[in-house]
């Protein structure tokens, strides 16, 4: 208990308290030292007046609202397909985990080799079909589409893993009982399988939501938030404020606002999902 408490205070409570303190301060870096001065809520007051804050929040909302449902949908579909497959079950179970095992830096390189205007294979393939060159990473809409594509490709595996594990945990006799009662394949899916997958889907949704807020590596390496601010998600803007502008107090205030907003959304989403997908009474 005591070592746990010490570790918790050292690595969770203390940094969080420092972040809160920083959010209410102006921190300057002078002669090798950080000089803190209390600023009250000034950093928080600045937040709504900063247009890039709103832009990054809206980009993140678009990103999360697209990637989370897409990964949930594809991951669940893949889990159901693998569960019903006879020919590819072994290969699919193996290969579908690969993207999640690849480091984000390598994922960025992989997708640069696919999407880059110079060396990308996708444009070359499309050219053979007579399509003009697409601005995957150079055009604002194309860049957002690309980072969404990369994220969905990278993290569908995690949803697949969670849902497939839950699917394997559903007792076969439940389905047999359903079939004996005359349930068709789609009715068994709708009334037995999906409700029993509810908790796994809720967990996957929550994990993906938090991942969507934290997402950084691939976006930073693929687009650096550009072109312009087209893919400046909140995490990229926080990095910009902290490390490029060295505006530590403001960065801390923005980080804190993101944490509070994410916790609120996650809490609301989790409560809703739990309400909607109550486990069936057996």
């Amino acid at each position, binding site marked *: 208990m005591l070592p746990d408490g010490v570790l918790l205070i050292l690595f969770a409570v203390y940094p969080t308290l420092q972040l809160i303190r920083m959010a209410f301060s102006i921190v300057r870096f002078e002669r090798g030292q950080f000089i803190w001065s209390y600023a009250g809520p000034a950093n928080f007051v600045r937040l709504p007046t900063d247009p890039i804050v709103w832009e990054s929040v809206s980009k993140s909302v678009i990103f999360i609202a697209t990637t989370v449902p897409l990964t949930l949908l594809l991951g669940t*579909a893949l889990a159901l397909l693998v569960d019903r497959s006879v020919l590819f079950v072994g290969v699919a179970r193996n290969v579908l985990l690969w993207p999640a095992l690849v480091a984000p830096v390598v994922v960025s390189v992989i997708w640069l080799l696919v999407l880059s205007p110079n060396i990308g294979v996708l444009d070359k393939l499309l050219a053979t079909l007579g399509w003009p060159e697409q601005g995957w990473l150079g055009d604002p809409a194309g860049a957002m589409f690309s980072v969404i594509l990369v994220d969905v*490709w990278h993290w*569908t595996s995690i949803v697949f893993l969670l849902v497939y594990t839950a699917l394997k945990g559903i007792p*076969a006799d439940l389905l047999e009982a359903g079939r004996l009662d005359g349930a068709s394949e789609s009715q068994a899916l709708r009334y037995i399988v999906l409700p029993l997958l509810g908790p796994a889907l809720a967990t996957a949704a929550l994990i993906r939501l938090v991942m969507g807020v934290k997402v950084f590596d691939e976006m930073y390496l693929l687009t650096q938030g550009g072109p312009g601010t087209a893919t400046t998600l909140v995490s990229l803007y926080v990095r910009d404020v902290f490390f490029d502008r060295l505006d530590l107090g403001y960065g801390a205030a923005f980080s804190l606002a993101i944490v509070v907003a994410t916790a609120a959304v996650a809490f609301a989403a989790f409560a809703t999902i739990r309400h909607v997908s109550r486990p069936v009474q057996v």
Partner: protein
Amino acid sequence: MRTNRRRVNPFVEIPLALMVLIMVLPIAWMLVLSVQPDW
């Protein structure tokens, strides 16, 4: 969750094969480029 169905269903196998292909192609392309002499 598998029950005693063991028949090959093309509506399962073909979409699954395509999805697996999509997941593996970007990695495969990097591997192909990585063994090119001028890369």
